[in-house]
């Protein structure tokens, strides 16, 4: 079992492209062309359109202006961006708090049972997102299960409005992205040597200080990766606020959709998309900086 794996890894480790030309290089071309034509060119078009202006009947007038970006300074857009970042941050924090115990638990299970638990965490992630969001609509609505249960128990007399609120959006986001947090955390905890935790316990560290001084620093890469994986899709979320949120829970994703399809102000929608992308790139840059810093630390040891 270990011998072929080891020889395989050394062989690939030496250098992927040996002197022998196994496959002609041109077979990369079709895939690369597809990516360029249907991903990079469209992104560049969005960038170009974000500097154009809106035609009288929608559409795009190709005159260069910064108007769209200046318009984004309007307090209304600021508020929506602020709310989106806040929602994404709270979602990330909640997923971390909920996901860490689960990831820790899975990583400390016997090997055979880990696979089963991981699949259980993974399945909802591959289940249709619309369906999973609809499930909460079904549960939270005024005629929904929760209201029925509360009224049946005599806790409330009339149904309470649970759906179409900020809380419902947060719930939907946490529900939607929790698996993204658990998987990288699991990978990090799994690599953590249990002997270190035992040693800390033996030396009479309290549970909290074991967590803070030993577990957390050693699983930091997983924590950061998980946070990024939750933060990014939460920030660009569209379905969750659209279905579970009220009129006041609009997030950037809804605003972009609104500008493109309802107002048909493509230049402004494009500018919005690029600001969203800018925030995400900034988040990723922070991640890579921390990651690189930690790798350096690791190599020094």
């Amino acid at each position, binding site marked *: 079992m270990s011998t072929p*794996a080891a*020889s395989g890894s050394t*062989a*690939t480790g030496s*250098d*992927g*492209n*040996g002197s*022998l030309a*196994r*496959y002609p290089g041109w*077979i*990369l071309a*079709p*895939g*690369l062309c597809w*990516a360029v034509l*249907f991903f990079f060119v*469209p*992104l560049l*078009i*969005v960038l170009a359109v974000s500097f154009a202006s809106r035609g009288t009947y929608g559409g795009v007038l190709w005159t260069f202006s910064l108007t769209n970006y200046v318009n984004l300074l309007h307090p209304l857009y600021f508020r929506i961006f602020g709310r989106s970042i806040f929602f994404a941050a709270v979602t990330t924090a909640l997923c971390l708090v*909920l996901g860490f*115990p*689960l990831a820790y638990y899975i990583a400390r299970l016997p090997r055979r049972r880990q*696979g089963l*638990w991981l*699949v259980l*965490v*993974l399945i*909802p992630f*591959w*289940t*249709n*997102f*619309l*369906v999973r969001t*609809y499930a*909460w*609509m*079904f*549960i939270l609505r005024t*005629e929904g*299960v929760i209201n029925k249960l509360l009224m049946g128990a005599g806790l409330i007399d009339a149904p309470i409005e649970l759906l179409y609120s900020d809380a419902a959006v947060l719930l939907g986001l946490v*529900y939607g992205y*929790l*698996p993204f947090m658990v998987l990288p955390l699991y*990978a990090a905890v799994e690599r953590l040597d249990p002997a270190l935790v035992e040693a800390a316990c033996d030396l009479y560290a309290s549970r909290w200080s074991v967590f803070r001084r030993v577990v957390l620093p050693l699983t930091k890469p997983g924590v950061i990766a998980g946070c990024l994986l939750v933060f*990014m*899709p939460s*920030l660009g979320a*569209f*379905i969750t606020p659209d*279905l579970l949120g009220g009129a006041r829970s609009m997030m950037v*994703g809804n605003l*972009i959709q609104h500008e*493109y399809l309802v107002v048909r102000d493509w230049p402004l*929608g494009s500018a919005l*998309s690029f600001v969203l992308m800018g925030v*995400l790139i900034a988040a990723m840059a922070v991640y890579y900086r921390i990651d690189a810093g930690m790798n350096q630390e690791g190599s020094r040891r």
Partner: protein
Amino acid sequence: MTGRRVWLQVMSLGNLLFLYLPVAVLVLFSFNASRLSATWQGFTLKWYTALAEDRALLAATWNSLLVAGVSTVLATGLGVAAVLGLERLGSRSRRVIEGAMLLPLVVPEIMMGVALMLFFVLIKLPLGLPTVIIAHTAFNLPLVMVIVRARHRKLDPRLEEAASDLGATPWQVFRRVTFPLLRPAVVGAALMAFTVSLDDFIVTFFTAGPGSTTLPLKVYSMIKSGVSPEINALSALLVLVSMGLVGLSLAIQGRGIFIR
């Protein structure tokens, strides 16, 4: 020590309950006889039979299968070729091109949706099934590449080298050596791509036109027009299909894939 274990176990089971309970409730009530109420009024299959008679729904299902099928075949072909072609590049340019091609995995879906919509409108390609297929292939390509690449890196390159040394043409090397070794990853990747395509809403929402309504678009418009037991029944079926496909994909790829 034991107190901690119990606490962790309770938290973990709570997490799983949180992940599964809403969908379970949804599925359960797809069998509820009452149209409006969330109270149980007896078992029925009538919402499922109602689905089977919905012509628009059947058309949407057909569109979804067509889009998922064609985009999966395209993305798998392009993706496998790209992974093998990338081998030829120097490590520096390979990293850059690979990184660029995987970028769609981290770009927000809504960004990809609006970008493709603008692109299609500006080149005057009418929105419809072809544009949806192009878009789905674009986001499935990096997915296929990630999965296939992970497996390809673990292969012993000496096997392919040996085949070349013995006079096999590149096509023969591929057919007799590389592909059989990559097969679990390729099939797994194709099933993942199929599932993702079948489930995609946002990119489809922006790139579809009249007559190219897919299943998720249909579900969305049904949800928008109000909660109904038909949606529960349809949801239950979709959950079943996704779970089956993903289970199959994971089983074929083996356990390694999601541990990295």
